[in-house]
């Protein structure tokens, strides 16, 4: 059976998928499809697939729009690494980087009608780890990590009352 062969293989080694897209918005839908298929393949539940899919989409959209400024000759590279412990996704653009701290806090009522800041909020909410690394001429790399079997952050809050 393919399913059990894949899970056996995963016990001993990582599953890695790399995709490289040109900076066009319609290509983000392709990343969506791959994210969804990959997470379903490793047995994630539908709600987690939906939430992680949106986190990845936000990071890729940032790379296409704000990093690469929609210049189609610039690329966004997405690398998925799935092990038994975690799903780790790296999104790398070829842009000049930006100041994460300069983004408005979208939860401040004053900023409710401002367009920016929500993508990073969604990434932080849906992933266990979000890290931005600015590599100068080599662009920006965002790492999103979800530990498998980790407690849902919303649930944690409920448990704490």
């Amino acid at each position, binding site marked *: 059976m393919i399913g059990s062969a894949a899970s056996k293989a995963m016990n001993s080694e990582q599953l890695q998928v790399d995709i490289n897209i040109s900076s066009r918005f319609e290509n983000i839908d392709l990343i969506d499809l791959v994210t969804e298929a990959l997470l379903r393949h490793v047995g994630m539940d539908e709600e987690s697939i939906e939430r992680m899919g949106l986190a990845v*989409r936000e990071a890729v959209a940032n790379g296409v729009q704000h990093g690469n400024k929609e210049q189609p000759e610039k690329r966004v590279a997405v690398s998925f690494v799935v092990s038994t412990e975690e799903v780790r996704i790296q999104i790398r653009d070829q842009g000049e980087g930006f100041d994460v701290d300069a983004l408005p806090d979208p939860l401040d009522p004053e900023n409710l009608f401002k367009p920016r800041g929500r993508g990073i909020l969604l990434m932080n909410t849906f992933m266990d780890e979000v890290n931005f690394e600015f590599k100068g001429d080599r662009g920006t790399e965002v790492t999103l990590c979800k530990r498998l079997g980790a407690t849902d952050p919303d649930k944690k809050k409920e448990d704490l009352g």
Partner: protein
Amino acid sequence: MTYPARTREGVTILEPKGKITIGRGDIELRDSVDEAIEGGSNRVLVNFKKVTRMDSSGMAELVAAYKRITEAGGQMKLLYLPSNIRDVLGITQIAQVFDIFEDEDEALASFQ
């Protein structure tokens, strides 16, 4: 392109389908709301029943549309939010801006 729209009791009901995401769905939302306003309707109900996903760009357009309509003296409300959309509008606190309904008649009756 704009969303299919119908009018009931003086309210424009927009019926988007699929993704309201960067590059396409967000622009369709903006254009659909602009078309309603230009057509003289500033009472808008957006039916989310067939919307599968909304990203931060879609959300930015949603709050921008709300602002344009209210500044024009109108009202914008939401109908039938799927659970994943309700989830993200809750996290971003956009849900608190809108009146959200589960019943079209009830939604229409709430417009003044």
